[in-house]
């Protein structure tokens, strides 16, 4: 019995990392995913910030799931998410101003990242706190991995560096386009193509963006 529940917990955790990866499978939260992933550090910072908001909001939503009447459900969730985003915003300011300036207004835009509202609505509001947190943590880590995959590629090609460390020597010619807006679209597009090709080979039907229709 215990093994079973552990396996289930593991499933909850892994769902967001692989099967339902928010970036590569569901193509959600693209606005921060593309805007701030010009370097691996930015990508990780954004990923962690989102994970923090995701886990905290899901925990709170799950704790309050019996209290909140369904009429004001969404409004409540939004207020909760906005609260934690504000918290993260201030924490990043306190930790590193450089990071804060690199991420800019996109930290505050986490509020409208549909992964969070989606998880709060679809999962946390129906599950006990522990499960909700595990699921949220998985989603957050999946999102972070996705961002890192984007930011890493863009930094390597666009600046010849990873985490600010030069990889190919001083004479490397950076592909500036990769850190510019078109590069963001191309890199994410290329990742999706890669996954589509793998899926096709394995015979899994192609994924379609479900979009964000909460309201």
């Amino acid at each position: 019995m215990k093994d079973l529940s552990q396996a289930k917990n593991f499933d909850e955790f892994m769902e967001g990392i692989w099967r339902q990866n928010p970036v590569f499978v569901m193509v959600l939260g693209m606005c921060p995913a593309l805007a701030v992933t010009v370097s691996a550090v930015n990508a990780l910072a954004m990923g962690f910030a989102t994970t923090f908001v995701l886990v905290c909001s899901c925990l709170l939503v799950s704790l309050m799931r019996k209290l909140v009447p369904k009429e004001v459900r969404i409004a409540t969730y939004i207020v909760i998410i906005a609260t934690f985003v504000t918290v993260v915003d201030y924490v990043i300011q306190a930790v590193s101003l450089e990071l804060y300036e690199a991420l800019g207004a996109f930290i505050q835009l986490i509020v409208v990242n549909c992964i969070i509202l989606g998880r709060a609505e679809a999962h946390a509001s129906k599950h006990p706190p522990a499960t909700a947190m595990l699921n949220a943590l998985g989603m957050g880590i999946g999102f972070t991995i996705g961002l890192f995959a984007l930011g890493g590629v863009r930094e390597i090609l666009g600046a010849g560096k990873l985490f600010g460390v030069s990889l190919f020597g001083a004479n490397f010619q950076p592909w500036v386009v990769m850190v510019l807006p078109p590069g963001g679209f191309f890199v994410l597009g290329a990742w999706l193509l890669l996954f589509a090709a793998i899926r096709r080979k394995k015979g899994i039907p192609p994924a379609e963006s479900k979009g964000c229709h909460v309201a």
Partner: protein
Amino acid sequence: MNVANPMPSATPAASLVRTLGLVSALCGVIIVGAYQGTYEAAAANRRIALERTVFKIIPAAKSMTEWQATARGIRPAGGEAAEGAIKFYAAYAEDGSLAGIAVEGAAKGYADVVRILYGYSPDCQCINGIGVVATKETPGIGDKIITDKAFLANFKALDVKLDQALAKLANEVKVVKHGSKTDAWQIDAISGATVTSRAVGKAINDSAQALLPILLPEIEKLRKKES
């Protein structure tokens, strides 16, 4: 977001209001807590970053105070910033003498607004250093304004003397084509990054034109301070 949606509700209104109130109160507490908890550290971070930039521009500086200039004159910053006030920082050397003044300037560049901080020395009435506060210019081209040595050499002694009446600059700061600088008030553009170079020049010129005529007559106020 059904914030104001007058949906026919099964739950009594009082309960709705109570829940929303509870959530808001909880969230308020969390936010205020976070704000209070991080306020000091964030403010310290901001001050350190600013000081680092200012001290880089004015190497002799060891401490600084923030000022603002309006049409009525200059006064130490603090409290409400007046509309249209220009912010600047007076930097002092170890012995308390005025080491220089760091002023903010901004102009539209190639991609977005380029914000700079330049060091003004009242003794030679010239600019002797710049630092970039924020730029989103193209990497490898526009960001040469931070790295290009030949370009930075323009700001060793850039002439910003005022005219006789102390009403405006005697000579406008001008950005000229790469390799054709002839006068001390000209800036030699970076070849291939002309737009960004021009933005730097415009930022300095606009800010100096506005600030220096107010600042110079009252420069003694700054010297006396802290000495």
